[in-house]
């Protein structure tokens, strides 16, 4: 595998982790437009722990995830009282505030960025990504995922049927944040540098874009969306300066043609049916 391909694979991994961080709350109907803030929280916490406290990578990165999760729990309590677009915009504001705070925090280098000494190998990034994907897939087989879908489809009825809607929403939001924090911690340690400007609204919004493009109805959607988003601009490299313009045209055309996203349960069923007919044939 060439350096270029390996680099691309690592970027794909970061995008996949971010996509699942957005997917979990979205599965419960919460649009989180501030995911970059939680990534920043994870990245800075983990980097601080390895740099200043001498923690090992294996302890610092989960700690970064935990820090993002705790932050999510603290803000979830006031923030999840609001719904729909208000929630989306509150998370948007939250993301802005978090990265602005890190931009001003002298102890982690403020606007100059923060050097990270410990290094995460590409293999580590890939393994952690695989673990995150596996975790979300296992989670999607449990009742928890079913509850989230129920809440997304009808909050009132789920409440009437005895689900603890608030607790489930907070849990989905916090687990998403933990995943984002782990992704952020890995990011900082892989590139040996953390800067607050990277964790901008644009990053949050683009991540939401992967997930919606992939489709939110199945657990495969974010994976496919992130892969699509990472690889298509590379394939369009021949277009030179025009490649992002072409890519944007592609998104617009694609969403006009298939607004429900790339991967849907219906598509899954169709694929399975195709697989079966092939098996039946001698």
């Amino acid at each position, binding site marked *: 595998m060439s350096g270029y391909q390996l680099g691309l694979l690592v970027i794909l991994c970061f995008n996949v982790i971010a996509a699942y961080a957005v997917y979990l709350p979205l599965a419960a109907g919460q649009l989180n437009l501030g995911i970059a803030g939680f990534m920043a929280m994870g990245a800075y916490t983990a980097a601080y722990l390895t740099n200043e406290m001498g923690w090992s990578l294996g302890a610092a990165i989960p700690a970064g995830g935990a820090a993002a999760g705790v932050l999510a729990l603290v803000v979830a309590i006031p923030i999840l*009282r609001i719904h729909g*677009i*208000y929630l989306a915009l509150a998370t948007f504001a939250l993301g802005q*505030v978090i990265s602005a705070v890190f931009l001003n925090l002298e102890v982690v280098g403020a606007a100059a960025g923060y050097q990270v000494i410990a290094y995460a190998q590409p293999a580590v990034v890939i393994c952690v990504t695989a673990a995150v994907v596996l975790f979300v897939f296992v989670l999607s087989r449990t009742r928890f995922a079913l509850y989230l879908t129920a809440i997304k489809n009808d909050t009132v009825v789920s409440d009437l049927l005895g689900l603890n809607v608030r607790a489930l929403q907070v849990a989905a939001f916090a687990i998403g944040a933990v995943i984002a924090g782990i992704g952020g911690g890995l990011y900082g340690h892989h590139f040996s540098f953390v800067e607050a400007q990277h964790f901008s609204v644009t990053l949050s919004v683009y991540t939401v874009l992967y997930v919606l493009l992939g489709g*939110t109805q199945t657990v495969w959607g974010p994976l496919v969306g992130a892969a699509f988003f990472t690889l298509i601009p590379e394939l369009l490299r021949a277009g030179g300066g025009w490649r*992002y313009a072409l890519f944007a045209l592609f998104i*617009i*055309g694609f*969403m006009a043609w298939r607004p429900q996203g790339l991967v849907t349960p219906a598509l899954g069923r169709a694929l399975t049916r195709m697989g079966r007919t092939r098996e039946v044939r001698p």
Partner: protein
Amino acid sequence: MIAQQIINGVMLGAIYVLVGVSFTLAIGILNFLNFSIPGLFMVGGMVTWVLLKGGWHWSLAMGGALFTAALIALLVERLAYRRSRNSDPEVPLVSSLGFLVLLENLALVTVGSDQQAFPALIADFNLRIGSLVIGTAQIISLVVALALVIWLSVMLHRTSFGRQIRSVAESRDTAILLGIDVDKLIPQIFVFSALFTALGGILFALTYLQVSPFMGEGVGFKGIAAMIVGGMGNVWGAVIGGLLIGLAEVLSIRFLGADMVNIAVYGLLLALLIVRPQGLLGRPPAREKL
């Protein structure tokens, strides 16, 4: 000195007002968080600059920019909104964001990523009252912004067209049953909102004498903040929100330093959303999409 800061804040706020009004029209009437608005803001400033450089008269250049923005808004309606209005509520957001990426990159390819100096149409275009300096372009921005908002609010409440718009905002299905041609009305709303934004972009270029492919992003996000502070869907709310955000920004630069702006502005926004999600003038939503 503080008087000067307040004047600067109000003038900056006037631009946020125009963008905030656009967002509020799209959300209040269509329930659509239209992310192409920052792109249209950039189109307003950029196309004017390109045409001025091409030797056009300033009125034609501005007209050309407004016309371009209106055309793009019609495309956004056709490709992003209309195609996906019956699917998941977040979907039009994705393709409108696609338009933002497209517009920014088209500008990037044609003029490059540098900030371009916008020509001052009249040299030293400033008024001096005592020690205060007031940019005439800024006064024009403020007057135009306020005049447009007054006109919009009268139109929404007094005319048949305004009643139709409000009925669509209340319930699209009922509006269709009552014989309103929704497919004709909605593109008009998109055009309105695009004209407001593009005008904001032109006034921004006139006031700050610079344009760049990414000029819409920061202002666009502040416009969203203005809309939320005032209350979504409320035109006067966007006015108050825009002016407050402008003031908060300028005053926090003055007293806390330039690095603290985002903490101050978005922290304020977050606190407000938690305490009073419907904004200063908004009513709690009767129904929700997104």
